[in-house]
């Protein structure tokens, strides 16, 4: 992983002192609310329903054992003993004290971490595939490109006061595990006809009030041109994006309004001005950054392991976990493990100080000292020897992180909702609990197969509800929580937006409604068809009939 040099360290250290002074001036009444709002957001600090919320950056989801331990320490010392992983692969703390935030940031800087640009109208944390660098289906490891983007976008002087937030995702595999098509910019490493690897560039995707799938602005961009092209897109957006209405300020609205062709023309015209500038990446720099992401010293003997097979045959619970919570590794004898943060009775993505330390220890002992966070709010130990999987599973199970539900209905993406968030209209955690209780039979979930269930407590869509195979959106109706359900969405390579099922359902009826949807799926499905495929084939109507007919 990328290791800070003196310059990187200096940037985060100076940033901490800058924010310390900004906080001091704010508390002394020298800095207006509006100005402090902007600077605190650019340091990840929100003021929420009960307390401030601090969002810490985990660049492209990659994190080391010492960093995990530091996050655990912060949870214990400054919070109530837990944190919450987000769809941006960051972690947020819900109970820090405003005046202690500079100290938290200083502690983070000790382990090469920060909260820079985790909020505000600026370029946010770049995200990628949680299996980057280890998945067999990959063309090239996207992480060096994420790091190059991280450095370029960090404290970028021109793009700190954009019309609205700006999110970039990079993938290196034809399988999209980063929801790249619903990002402001999606970058796909692809090969052109000449056999060169570069980027397909999508622009103008996004969720929120107006969900849009990104459009291709360029089928192939040479690697050296990456930053000049990004800068051209950002400059056009910064100058032309709407600023009169925050709900119409994302780049997707600009691209829709101009049309992708006219937008492309503007970008290409701007790009012509800067393409041959110092923004062009040198081979030496690309190689330097790639050097930080070289494959580990894998054990050539790992493939000769026979113990895994024995354990799979002798321990049913382990076998079930292995089938659902692991991913193929490109190196024979190794496996990527998904650490489930979707237990039965805890909010999705929440993790305690102790669990953070357990994952840190497991990473150190079994996975080259690194872990990853996923946009589905889980963690990954990407490089575990097959012979060690049993020990890893036992430890995870002991600490409630081995629920074998990855990819199933209860592997839900859930925003914190009204219980924590100042923006939310409705609660989400109680609904997630209701669903977890109603669908606690894992065999039933396995029979249903892959179903992405995403839930947001408001239209801002932090829980990505539009791209869930089942999406749940909390809405407020005269002071009561109601839930609008969409079906048929996907955030993968076949990205699509879910369609509204019908009128919203009452809070108590959500799980019951899901049951009817799933019954319909089971009746209608063909063999090998996922829930989302069935919805696409038969349409919303049969689902709608079942749900609303029964209500009379």
């Amino acid at each position, binding site marked *: 992983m990328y290791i800070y040099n003196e*310059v990187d360290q*200096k*940037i985060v250290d*100076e*940033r901490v*002192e*800058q924010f310390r*002074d*900004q906080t001091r001036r704010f508390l002394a009444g020298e*800095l207006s609310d*509006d*100005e402090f709002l*902007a*600077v605190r957001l650019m340091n990840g600090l929100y003021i929420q329903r009960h307390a401030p919320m601090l969002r810490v950056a985990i660049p492209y989801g990659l994190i080391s054992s010492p960093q995990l331990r530091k996050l655990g320490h912060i949870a214990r010392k400054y919070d109530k003993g837990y944190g919450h992983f987000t769809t941006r692969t960051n972690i947020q703390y819900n109970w820090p004290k405003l005046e202690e935030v500079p100290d938290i940031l200083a502690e983070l800087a000790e382990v090469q971490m920060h909260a820079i640009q985790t909020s505000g*109208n600026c370029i946010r944390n770049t995200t990628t595939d949680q299996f980057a660098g280890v998945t067999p289906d990959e063309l090239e490891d996207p992480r060096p490109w994420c790091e190059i983007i991280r*450095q*370029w*976008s*960090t*404290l*970028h*002087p*021109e*793009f*700190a*006061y*954009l*019309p609205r937030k700006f999110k970039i995702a990079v993938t290196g595999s034809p399988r999209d595990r980063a929801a790249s098509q619903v990002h402001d910019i999606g970058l796909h490493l692809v090969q052109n006809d000449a056999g060169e690897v570069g980027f397909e560039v999508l622009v103008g995707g996004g969720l929120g009030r107006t969900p849009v799938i990104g459009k291709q602005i360029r089928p192939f961009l040479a690697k050296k041109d990456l*930053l000049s092209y990004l800068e051209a897109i950002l*400059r056009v957006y*910064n*100058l032309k994006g709407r*600023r009169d209405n925050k709900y119409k300020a994302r780049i997707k609205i600009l691209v829709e309004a101009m049309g992708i062709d006219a937008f492309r023309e503007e970008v290409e015209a701007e790009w012509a*001005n*800067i393409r041959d*500038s*110092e*923004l062009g990446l*040198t081979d*030496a*720099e690309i190689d*330097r950054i790639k050097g930080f992401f070289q494959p580990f010293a894998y054990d050539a003997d790992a493939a000769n392991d026979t113990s895994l097979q024995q354990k799979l045959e002798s321990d049913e619970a382990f076998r079930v976990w292995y089938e659902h919570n692991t991913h193929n590794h490109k190196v024979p004898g190794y496996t990527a493990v998904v650490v489930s943060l979707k237990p039965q009775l805890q909010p999705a993505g929440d993790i305690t100080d102790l669990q953070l330390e357990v994952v840190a220890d497991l990473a150190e002992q079994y996975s080259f000292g690194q872990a990853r966070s996923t946009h589905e709010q889980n963690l990954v130990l990407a490089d575990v020897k097959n012979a060690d999987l049993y020990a890893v599973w036992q430890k995870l199970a002991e600490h409630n992180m081995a629920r074998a539900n990855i990819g199933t209905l209860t592997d839900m993406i859930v925003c914190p909702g009204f219980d924590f968030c100042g923006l939310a209209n409705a609660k989400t955690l109680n609904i997630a609990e209701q669903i977890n209780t109603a669908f606690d039979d894992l065999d039933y979930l396995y029979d249903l197969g892959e179903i992405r269930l995403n839930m947001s407590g408001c239209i801002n869509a932090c829980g990505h509800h539009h791209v869930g195979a089942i999406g749940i959106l909390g809405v407020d109706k005269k002071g009561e929580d109601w839930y609008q359900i969409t079906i048929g969405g996907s955030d993968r390579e076949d990205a699509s937006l879910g369609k509204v099922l019908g009128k919203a359902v009452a809070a108590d009826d959500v799980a019951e409604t899901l049951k009817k949807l799933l019954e319909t799926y089971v009746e209608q499905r063909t063999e090998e068809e996922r829930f989302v495929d069935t919805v696409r084939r038969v349409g919303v109507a049969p689902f709608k009939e079942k749900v609303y007919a029964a209500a009379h």
Partner: protein
Amino acid sequence: MPLLIDRKPVADDRWQLVEDAENLPASGDLLLPLGLYLENKDALSAQAGEIAVRVNGDDDLTPVLESLDSFPMIAVEFPAFRDGRGFSLARILRRAGFKGELRAVGNPARDQLGYMERCGFNAYEFSEEVYSDDFLKAFEEISVHYQGSADDPRPIYLQS
């Protein structure tokens, strides 16, 4: 109004803002909003003093870019704290070769000054109520930068 030029407080501002072309001052150096300047370009050519223009994100910069050398100063307006278009305007003006004074007006915030300087501004005009000499510290809070900008086009790996 408090004014900083090249990180130093300046007591006298030589530019007089003109917002009404009916009553042009007989002498002195004048600052005009771009639209007003373009409407009165011919009349202004008879002025004894120098002419500067004020631009904002709604303006088409083309006429300014076409005659950059004729302006000793260009003011870029920041109509609201969170309106960041001026950062890009500054970069475009500097990239086009503007060497004169580039001034941020409309009450730039202390915590934006470092970024403004990196985008090519070298002058800042503040309202009396907000300014303090503490603002001068803002330029030195972050001493290193990853990406090139107007101040130094080189990214970190080409520096040193």
